[in-house]
């Protein structure tokens, strides 16, 4: 409860700071719309030449892009402002020392305390794209499918956060290793159905670096209904990744000796 209050206060403060610069807000909205338009244009161009992309129809791909947009928005809002460049800022420049001195869990302060509420503009656009996709799909999702979709989205967000923390944790052992940029680049691979990638890469994206979870699994769940064989491993995998991230963070903190005096 205390963490939620802290989270709410931090979000509110960030929102006020962001809204103070209205031109920037307008700029971000326009750029988000342009970025989304470019992605939708890509889909339009691809489906002008084919009816099916690795088994996905055009409307299914629109729902997938909307779902990807939702997750990207949440990542940009809550995760990236904290964990990007953590090895540089947190470890090498010693910013983690400040977190250790504050009366709140260090993992929360390092990974969730700051936010970028303006990035939520993409969330609204993602919802709009999903709505358009579903309306063209011809069949409304059942309440069960919608509930399962929400569950997979929460699981995907948890895994996204946990992967970010795990990559940040590497800095406790190798401070010069800056892998979050690769994570950000690899994230883009989830923008399309992972079925388009060839087998070794597809297996990596499904099991080792679970980007399939970001958009492909939630979209499948929403459009084709929940399947226990997919839902159970998704939730279990998210819980395991989350526990792994917390454990690694604690082990890393034991090694940390501080960079400031």
């Amino acid at each position, binding site marked *: 409860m205390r963490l939620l209050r802290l989270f709410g206060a931090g979000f509110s403060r960030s929102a006020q700071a962001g809204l103070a610069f209205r031109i920037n807000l307008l700029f971000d909205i326009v750029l988000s719309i342009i*970025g989304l338009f470019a992605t939708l*244009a890509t889909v339009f161009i691809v489906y002008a030449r084919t009816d099916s992309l690795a088994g996905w129809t055009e409307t299914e791909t629109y729902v997938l892009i909307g779902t990807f947009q939702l997750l990207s928005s949440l990542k940009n809002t809550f995760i990236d402002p904290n964990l990007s460049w953590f090895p540089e800022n947190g470890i090498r420049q010693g910013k983690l020392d400040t977190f250790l001195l504050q009366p709140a869990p260090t993992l929360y302060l390092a990974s969730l305390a700051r936010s970028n509420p303006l990035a939520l503009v993409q969330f609204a656009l993602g919802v709009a794209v999903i709505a358009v996709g579903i309306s063209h799909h011809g069949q409304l999702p059942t309440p069960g499918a919608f509930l399962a979709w929400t569950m997979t989205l929460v699981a995907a967000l948890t895994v996204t956060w946990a992967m970010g923390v795990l990559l940040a944790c590497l800095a406790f052992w190798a401070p010069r290793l800056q892998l979050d940029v690769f994570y950000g680049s690899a994230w883009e*691979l989830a923008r*399309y159905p992972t079925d388009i990638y060839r087998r070794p890469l597809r297996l990596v994206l499904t099991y080792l670096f679970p980007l399939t979870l970001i958009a492909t699994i939630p979209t499948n769940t929403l459009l084709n209904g929940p399947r226990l064989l997919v839902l159970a491993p998704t939730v279990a995998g998210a819980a395991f990744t989350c526990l792994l991230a917390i454990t690694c963070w604690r082990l890393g903190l034991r090694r940390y000796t501080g960079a400031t005096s």
Partner: protein
Amino acid sequence: MTAPAAAYGRPARVLLLIALRIRLEVLEWSGTWWFLFTLVIQAVLGPLIGMFVWSAVYPADSSIATYYVALLLVTVMTESFEQFTFSEKIYDGTISHDLLRPQPVVITTIGTNIAIRIWLTVMGIPIAVLAAFAFGVSLTWAAALSALPVFVLGATLSFCWIYTLSLTAFWTERVHSIVGFGWTLNSLLGGTIAPLAFLPGPLQDIARVLPFYGMLGLPADVAAGRVHGLPPVLTGLAYQAAWIAVLVTSAVLLWRAGIRRYTVVGA
């Protein structure tokens, strides 16, 4: 002015200064190989995704993979980061150091640009070879050499485009968003998300005239052997030259206007 430089005429002096700057920057950037590698990964991602998407649409067409491997190489060899190497200097005031030097400020920017491109090329070639091997692609030397003129103009055009956008840093603090917008246009109309031939008719005609195809798609198309005959190459070269002239003029005008309003605090 250094003694050897003074012995030459103005163009030769400028070239010598650029060469010296490139040497200096190549050495400076050599210590940041990890960061450069992250830039390479970011650069190759677009062409790789395009290759996967279009190979899924046309599994039997090997020319698509050839095009995208060529595009991957062109992309890493022509990347420009003036929003970081130039605009950030305007934001933190360190461009004043360059203004005090007895040489045009753009020389430093060009030197940094070419040095980064050299490192990205060195690091990007193994990735291109790996992609070519995975997709069974073989680029011919003859086609690659025939792409040299359009590649050189494309690389110049790419620099001019990003540099012109980066000059907006004199007026706004959102230069990264502006360059991001430019990058989106480049991906959409330059041949990254789809080869130009796959764009719908009207969009294809527009894209052929705009500068973005000349930066990436045209050199990749020629290197991949997808352009047949001399006339399309000559037309492409003419568009590239015209856009370079437009962007250089814009950059000069923006620089003159921007430097008049530039102020900095501190000694």
